[in-house]
């Protein structure tokens, strides 16, 4: 195979097989390599297609709506005459839901991870971890349904203290219900990835601490937790980016009322639910609301992309390599 490293055939044993090949004239082999490379390139084309499909209508949108009004306005009323496109109203909706989701998921997820990694017996861990991961495989429309038919009427409304922030009773949609639903969805992400990171901490570190007289709690919080921090932070960043992009739970449980607030017991509209509600059905291509969907999509895409880059960087920068 005339591969990229085809001529260096004299490498030491254990080198990549591609370097062991002698040059060959088999054109079939080359054709196969080309076809496989095409499959890889297709994934890059997907990204290109995402960018192409976002950019055109977004530019069209900003020809009508000034970019400053979009980014810094707090009124999102696309259906009014004249319409107002202040995206902060629905960005606040997304942040509102994400905030409560994380306040629920981070302690629960990290607690579960520490329990599984430091306290549970191997047998308990072998059953509990996959059970928890079932949650990650449940379709979000089912979690959204659960949020609106159980979390809201059976958990939040009975437990919410009276009229705090306006009270929860009698409201069909509130941000907190969607937040808890999303929190439940991302708990296995945080628990599973953090547990992997904690289990990868070498035994020697723990045994050293125990030998110095540390208690199990001290070993967990002062030795294992810091040693696994990069994995833990990466799991949280991943969970946040999942929460920002979640659609069905927000649509079902948090309503579609743009609301510039972080109040957990108000109905809100998130960026994703605006996209889902507006682009459903027969919205005429080229209209301003059609273009607004793409503008919001561009913003969401950029936010999640930035978070993803941050998480990859974090892992790379702070990864502690143990043998």
């Amino acid at each position, binding site marked *: 195979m005339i591969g990229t490293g085809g001529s260096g055939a004299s490498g030491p044993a254990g080198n990549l097989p591609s370097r062991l090949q002698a040059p060959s004239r088999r054109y079939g082999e080359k054709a196969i390599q080309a076809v496989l490379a095409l499959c*890889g390139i297709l994934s890059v084309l997907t990204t290109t297609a995402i960018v192409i499909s976002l950019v055109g209508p977004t530019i069209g949108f900003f020809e009508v709506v000034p970019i400053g009004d979009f980014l810094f306005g707090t009124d999102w009323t696309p259906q009014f005459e004249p319409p107002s496109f202040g995206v902060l109203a629905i960005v606040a909706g997304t942040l509102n839901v994400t905030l409560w989701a994380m306040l629920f998921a981070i302690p629960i997820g990290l607690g579960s991870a520490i329990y599984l990694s430091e306290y549970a017996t191997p047998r308990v861990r072998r059953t509990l971890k996959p059970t928890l991961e079932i949650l990650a495989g449940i379709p979000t429309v089912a979690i959204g349904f659960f949020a609106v038919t159980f979390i809201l009427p059976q958990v939040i409304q009975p437990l919410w203290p009276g009229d705090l922030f306006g009270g929860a009773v009698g409201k069909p949609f509130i941000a907190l219900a969607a937040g808890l639903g999303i929190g439940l969805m991302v708990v296995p992400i945080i628990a599973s990835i953090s547990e992997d990171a904690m289990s990868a901490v070498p035994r020697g570190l723990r045994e050293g601490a125990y030998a110095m007289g540390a208690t199990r709690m001290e070993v967990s919080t002062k030795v294992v937790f810091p040693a696994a921090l990069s994995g833990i932070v990466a799991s949280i960043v991943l969970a946040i980016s999942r929460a920002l992009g979640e659609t069905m739970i927000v649509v079902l449980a948090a309503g579609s009322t743009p609301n510039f607030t972080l109040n957990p017991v108000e109905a809100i509209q998130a960026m994703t639910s605006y996209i889902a509600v507006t682009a459903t059905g027969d919205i005429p291509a080229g209209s301003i609301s059609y273009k607004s969907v793409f503008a919001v999509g561009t913003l969401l895409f950029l936010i999640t992309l930035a978070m993803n880059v941050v998480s990859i960087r974090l892992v790379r920068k702070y990864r502690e390599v143990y043998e």
Partner: protein
Amino acid sequence: MAEPGVAAPRSRLAVAGARATTRATLSNQPRSDVIRNVIFAALLLLAILIALAGLIALLVQAFVKGAPALSPDLFTNGPSRIRPESAGFRPAILGSLELIAGVIAFVVPVGVGAALYLEEYADKTRWWNRLIEVNIQNLAAVPSIIYGILGLGFIVRGPLDLGFVLAAGSLTLALLVLPMVIIAAREAIRAVPDSIRQGSLALGATKWQTIRRQVLPASVPGILTGIILAVSRALGEAAPLLLVGAAAFVTFDPQPLGSDRYSALPVQIYNYATQPQEEFRALAAAGIIVMLVVLLAMNSVAIWLRNRYEQRW
């Protein structure tokens, strides 16, 4: 507990009490430390129990709400806006099956091909190969609704211009789960030890013969597991389909390319769930039961495959 079957509960309690007393007197741990440790362990246990309680409540709630509406009619009747007692999921279930067939047809060759290229052919020092790799990592984290926008702006309209047909939905879902398949397939291929490749090459096989007859068969269980998990993700995904033409009250059976509009199980569930009447909510819960049972079956197959055929070298 040494032999829990032998000791009667009372003597077991006595043993536990004696042991705790001994430990407390002999231990040089300060009392506050012991208490703090117990509280900490209890909090950890509470955290995982809350997560598990959420899972159990979710499943029980779906069954309690959906049980009255569970009947064979779910599979034979079409949707209805006004008569929940005779409404069902027939076009939605058929639509989901056709969508999934399309996803598999696209994702298996392309995903495995890309994984083979990255693992077996790509020179990791070249920038374009690193670009492909980083790109796949990033694609895996793009929210599903963005794939819906891609489907709307690129597949339904724009360059491909397929219209709101089932094939557009299928292609959108396929692109959504493609990174998952590539990542899983790469891991499976990477797990095949180099000595097997070198043995094959030393016997005179060409590179493709080696891949085709040694690497692929050895990595099939891992690849299949990845494909099943990706397909179950595609099956439950509703958000992107909302944008590419999946609609609620489609009363006819779907055609891949012919008819405008189609339906899918999660989209139908979403639509029933947003209806105000309690009967429609029961219908939504029944749909969720059907979907969860199918997903559970698929995941069990994936786990069984992994345990049955997993090889360790």
